[in-house]
């Protein structure tokens, strides 16, 4: 009986026990670090200790088999310790250069049968790190696109940037499969976002049974939903379609209002956001491509747009300059010129704080 002897409110295990000895010994005593080569960091302690980190890319969707392989490696080289980064990379820590070399060699040779790397080393410094993402069709009920497949497609294309440090600064690519944006997609250098374009269908037959209609009505941020009756007299809702902005919040509250649709759903690309307070304040990403089709499994249009942005940025930005800072420096009108992306009316804000984006100046570039 699992309810017997119940233990609750344990919280997570204490972190200290998972620190390898070198981390325990030097906790809070690090004095500087250096990236030895893409994916390899060394941190130097005031004690003189050095810890070498090998950062490996990973699909954060993993199987127990894969995790066991990670454990094997950690057992072999890292005294049984391993960690994961905030962007879902795997980090193996060793305390000597010898171990480092052996570990590197081992990792480089591990591939899936189909040939893709299991543990590609990279993701440090002025490059591209792992693309953080969300569930998509693998586990969620609201996506407007799939996550894992798009991320795989884009990551393959950007692989060289993962394994090098040739960009002006870090470029963080993130992906979320619907406007709920389970991640920091709204503040990423490049963000890929699943977006619906059709208003919800009302499932009149079941809505009164499966939903709290007033909650569904209240859920709509633009007041597009109002109470209604079917011809048979059932309680239902009607939707002012031309007011709907496809946010899906009503569907979150009420499963009788599905909005996903093969032709309607697709990908919006945002760019120029950042999180760090370095030089400039954190900023939101801006919508630069309103919609691209869900062209499974490799999303060629999405990949192409990402590459366009990245190449224009790489060619134009200064050292240390994040993508959004570059766009602001040259002006967004030049961003569109240089990336070759089309500027359309869909990119002009017409939501709540829209006025603040209007150009109230004669300063512009032709």
């Amino acid at each position, binding site marked *: 009986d699992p309810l017997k002897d119940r233990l609750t409110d344990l919280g997570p295990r204490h972190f200290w026990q998972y620190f390898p000895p070198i981390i325990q010994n030097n906790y809070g005593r690090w004095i500087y670090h*250096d990236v030895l080569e893409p994916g390899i960091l060394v941190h130097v302690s005031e004690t003189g200790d050095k810890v070498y980190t090998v950062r490996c890319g990973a699909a954060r969707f993993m199987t127990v088999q894969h995790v066991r392989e990670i454990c094997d490696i950690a057992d072999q080289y890292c005294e049984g310790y391993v960690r994961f980064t905030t962007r879902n990379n795997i980090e193996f820590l060793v305390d000597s250069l010898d171990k480092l070399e052996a570990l590197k060699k081992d990792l480089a040779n591990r591939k899936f049968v189909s040939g893709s790397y299991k543990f590609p080393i990279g993701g440090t410094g002025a490059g591209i790190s792992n693309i953080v993402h969300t569930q998509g069709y693998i586990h969620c009920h609201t996506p407007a696109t799939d996550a894992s497949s798009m991320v795989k497609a884009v990551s393959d294309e950007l692989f060289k940037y993962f394994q090098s440090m040739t960009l002006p600064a870090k470029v963080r690519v993130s992906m979320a499969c619907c406007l709920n944006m389970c991640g920091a997609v709204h503040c990423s250098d490049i963000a890929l976002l699943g977006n619906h374009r059709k208003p919800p269908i009302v499932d009149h037959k079941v809505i009164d049974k499966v939903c709290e209609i007033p909650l569904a009505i209240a859920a709509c941020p633009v007041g597009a939903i109002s109470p209604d009756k079917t011809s048979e007299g059932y309680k239902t809702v009607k939707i002012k379609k031309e007011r709907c902005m496809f946010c899906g919040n009503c569907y979150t509250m009420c499963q009788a209002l599905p909005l996903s649709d093969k032709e309607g759903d697709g990908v919006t690309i945002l760019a120029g956001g950042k999180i760090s*307070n370095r030089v400039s304040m954190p900023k939101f990403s801006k919508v630069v491509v309103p919609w691209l089709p869900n062209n499974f499994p490799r999303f060629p249009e999405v990949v192409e747009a990402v590459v366009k942005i990245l190449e224009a940025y790489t060619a134009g930005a200064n050292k240390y300059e994040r993508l959004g800072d570059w766009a602001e420096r040259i002006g967004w009108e030049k961003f569109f010129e240089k990336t070759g992306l089309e500027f359309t009316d869909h990119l002009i804000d017409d939501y709540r704080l829209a006025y603040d984006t209007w150009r109230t100046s004669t300063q512009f570039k032709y």
Partner: protein
Amino acid sequence: KHAIPDLEELENGPWPSFVADAKQEALHRRKLAGNRMLIERDVVEDMLGQLQDSFDDGETHWKHGGIVGVFGYGGGIIGRYSDQPEKYPSIAHFHTIRVNQPASKFYNTDFLRTICDLWEYRGSGLMNLHGSTGDLVLLGTTTEQLEPIFFELTHVLGQDIGGSGSNLRTPSCCIGKARCEFACYDTQDLCYELTKYYQDELHRPAFPYKFKIKFDGCPNGCVASIARSDMSFIGTWRDNIRIDQKAVKAYLSGEVEPNGSAHQGRDWGKFDIQKEVLGLCPTKCMYLEGNELKIDNQECTRCMHCINVMPMALKPGIDNGVSILLGAKAPILAGAQMATLIVPFMKAEPPYDSIKDFIEKVWEFWIEEGKNRERLGELMQRIGLPKFLATIGLRPVPQMVKNPRENPYILWQEKDVPGGWSRDIDAYRSRHKS
């Protein structure tokens, strides 16, 4: 089991293929003894099959999540059901379990292997390392396995599950002092302490909506707390940046690579401190006196740029603490918000009493005033910053805003104005004929 041509295409390319991994797991499960699994053997194959269907249809095949969970908890499990249960019976139920990761996600293999064994036995064998909030996410099991899994997690691993629903969500933190020279406070310790201290809030929904706390050790923001936590703790200092002039010279001479060699892949020319450091300092508060680097710390906004470029020479001050920012969230409902600076500086030392006090004041206010499904940031917007500050008892300081208001619509209150608001039209008309 199912034809998955599009997915198999995704086995190509250098990036680790989740399909290849899933297929290796599917194969493994085919070979596994029946008594080593309590979930259908072909759960992975069904998952892949349904995913291929989703590609074909351009629509997800997961139904709206039902409410499932473990006894006494209001969160930590996300219910999930296939809308094609006949075709994919093994994933008819496919709930996830969010396991509260240890702070900054260090593990030993013992822990991970135990999780793997447990999850192979009672779940799909599929997981996320990690979910966006930070949990170790176990993807796909049936309702009846939930309690046993929870039992094993707690009894065998001494490990609890994380948050979901209208409660405190699993806090998370950057690597901090464990391996970073920039950390201004002990992110892991504070994260752990608060997670433990607020277990009740984490497991038993008592809030208007979800509440996220994240801990960044410095303004670089490696856990992105400023963008995605209702309460964001970011390390900072209030004394001076420490300068090692010898190390400065090492950078100037080219002996040490700038920015920890993070730009080594391209030839950016010789390090130019004027252009790369002084010139990019947002406040222009740095200058050279001969070869001595000087900082007018009064003007510094602690953006970290110079420190990032010359980690060996520059270090955050030693009078450290946190800035607390509130209200970040994703776009639903009225647009995304970034967190707003509410407490410019607070010390962050065990037992963290002033931090706990602050958290509780904020919660009290939010529980009192927040509408159902209203995030803290939205509530702050709705009632306005001045009123929010008054309610939680904070003195307004200019650091909270980028600039003072531009509109003159000051909401004076009756008590501010001598004579009050009750006026007499007859007295007015005695002075002014209509």
